[in-house]
């Protein structure tokens, strides 16, 4: 290791003590500002039930991606589904007029709100789109299947 300055040496010793306490305590407590961004909170999940009025694979309106407009008993609701390729990969196709059940929640987005789907169900098929924290699951794609994908399904040279 390169020589370190006396000042740094002392800080290292101080830090060593800190690290021991950090390990024991799990983590350093920093002051953190209260985020005003919308938090996906599983306890606030609601269920939309209705019929598919409109399904758009690649919406030009934010948030970009697949949207479905669901006619519910209280009116139409625009729902963000995410990456259409993830829906297709899971052989999930929404058809206009069909009954659908969507679990998720409405969060502030832009100048208004958007209903972000966590689970979409149609007929006997259910697909989880987001984690319990609202994280998109389509990012990892087939990687999430953990070696379940056969080599032949990864196209082309590595």
């Amino acid at each position, binding site marked *: *290791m*390169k020589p370190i*300055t006396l000042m*740094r040496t*002392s*800080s*290292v010793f*101080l830090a060593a003590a*800190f*690290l021991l306490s*950090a*390990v024991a305590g799990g*983590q*350093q407590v*920093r*002051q*953190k*500002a209260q*985020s*005003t*961004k*919308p*938090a*996906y909170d599983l306890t606030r999940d609601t269920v939309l039930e209705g019929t598919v009025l409109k399904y758009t694979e*690649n919406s*030009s309106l*934010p*948030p*970009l*991606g*697949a949207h479905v407009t669901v006619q519910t008993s209280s009116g139409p609701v625009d729902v963000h589904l*995410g*990456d259409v*390729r993830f829906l*297709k990969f899971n052989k999930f196709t929404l058809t206009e007029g069909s009954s659908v059940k969507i679990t998720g929640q409405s*969060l502030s*987005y832009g100048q208004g709100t958007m209903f972000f789907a966590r689970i979409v169900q149609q007929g006997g098929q259910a697909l989880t789109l987001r984690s*319990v*924290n*609202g*994280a*998109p*699951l*389509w*990012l*990892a*794609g*087939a*990687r*999430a*299947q*953990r*070696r379940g*994908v056969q080599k032949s*399904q*990864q*196209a*082309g*040279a*590595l």
Partner: protein
Amino acid sequence: MKGLILYLTLLAAALEGACGGGGGSTPAPPPPVGNFSNASLKGQYAFSMSGTEPCGRTGSFFGRIGTFTADGNGNITGGVEDVNVCTGTSTLAFTNSSYSIQADGRGTLSLTNITGTTNYSITLSTISQGSIVQTDSTVTAGGSFQKQDTSAFSIAIIANGYVFDFSGVGFDASNNLVQQSIIGRFDADGGGGVINGLFDSNTAGVLSGQLAFPNGAFYQLDAAFPQSGRGTANIAGKNLTFYIVDGTRLKFLSSNLDFPEALVGDAIAQQNTSFDISSLNGPFAFLIGGGSVAGPIATAGRFTADGAGNLTSIVLDENDNANLTALPSPGGTVTGSYTVDANHFGGGTATWTDSKSGTFSFLFYLVSPTKAVFQETDNNITSDGSFLAQTSGPLTTSSIAGNYAFNWNGVSNGEDDFVGQMAVTTAATINVTGAMDFNFLDSSGIRKQFFNYPLTGSLTLGTDPTGRNTLTATTTPSPRTTYKFSAYAVDPNTTFLVGVDTSRVIAGLNTRQP
């Protein structure tokens, strides 16, 4: 869609650089102008990139790091890479590979291993580094490469403090594979030992808080590839493969031991000093990218730190899957503050609140008083990148004129990656001309590659050029597309870009060429 998160592997170049087909027809590009040639790419270079691969008929995140040796005559004479794809990890040696470089620094690179040939477009910002985009028919990725110091291929040279930023996909508490960012720092002892390791992880918006490295941290070189600078390590509890650029930079990728997790990133030597609140003093520009509950997100901006915990002159543009937010909001005011950890290792927090748009919060680890890795910590956002001191002004029309290598990473229908070169002149209106290659997923889900596409546009300085400037760039043939950016200058040589279109999320970096 639009669902992939935005990874800014290109920012690794920023931390150093600030110091100093498929479907497309080929239009007639402007004749390349400059002093680059095949001879400019000579020696051994380490590269890193991340992107999207097809896997099981859907897009999937993947990473790639490695090294290649260019002979100055268009031949790649050797090299090896590690890839982390959805089917697993591989270490592959290159054979019979080639490259070409045009006068403007743009070029192509083909790397062949036992599985076939992968193709890339590159742009040199200098003879020592550049940007790289994979341009295969089904795969896209973006990243950077830097010349290696082959004399540094020893464990003893890794003897410093290092700050790191890894991003990719990792497991959350429910065992879902989701977006993840880990930033932190450690001291390498020159013998394979790691001490004073600290990190903060953000796993799909769930924050770990600052943690000490778990037991088992180490690094070692790989005797199987002694000429490559390849090694393995455990950093922040993650099992990684790395390549040495030199004693001040290492490139990392998750190893097979952590599969299917995949993280990509760099570690940069940390200045040997005792950091405190006064370490952050002056104006800074920043760029971060990642994902939110809505999809990809990118944010760029600037702030001024006063050395006493206060942040002022805060300006930013955020593109959250096509929802645009600009600070200060119309009629709003922004106030901010920051802290630096009492342990003096350079970690800290930054927070600012717009009176109308709310609070933005971040963590950082200082590389030096002029550089840091930067991670957003707001609800449901996993986004990271860097901030750099705004120096070496003044920023004027004449001082920004010159040639720039650029690299943009974006998401529209899928991941899109761009690499090219632009000349900026002092002309009053159309002052940008250039050409680029890009790898693009169209609305029908077909990936297409476009090469030598001319572009024209304008770079317009704002009233305060250290704040928001604007860049528009239009590709002149079909697909005629205009890309609009807010541009934040680090200095006359480096500019951070964030797209402000509502049809895509894009971020990028312009780096001046000599």
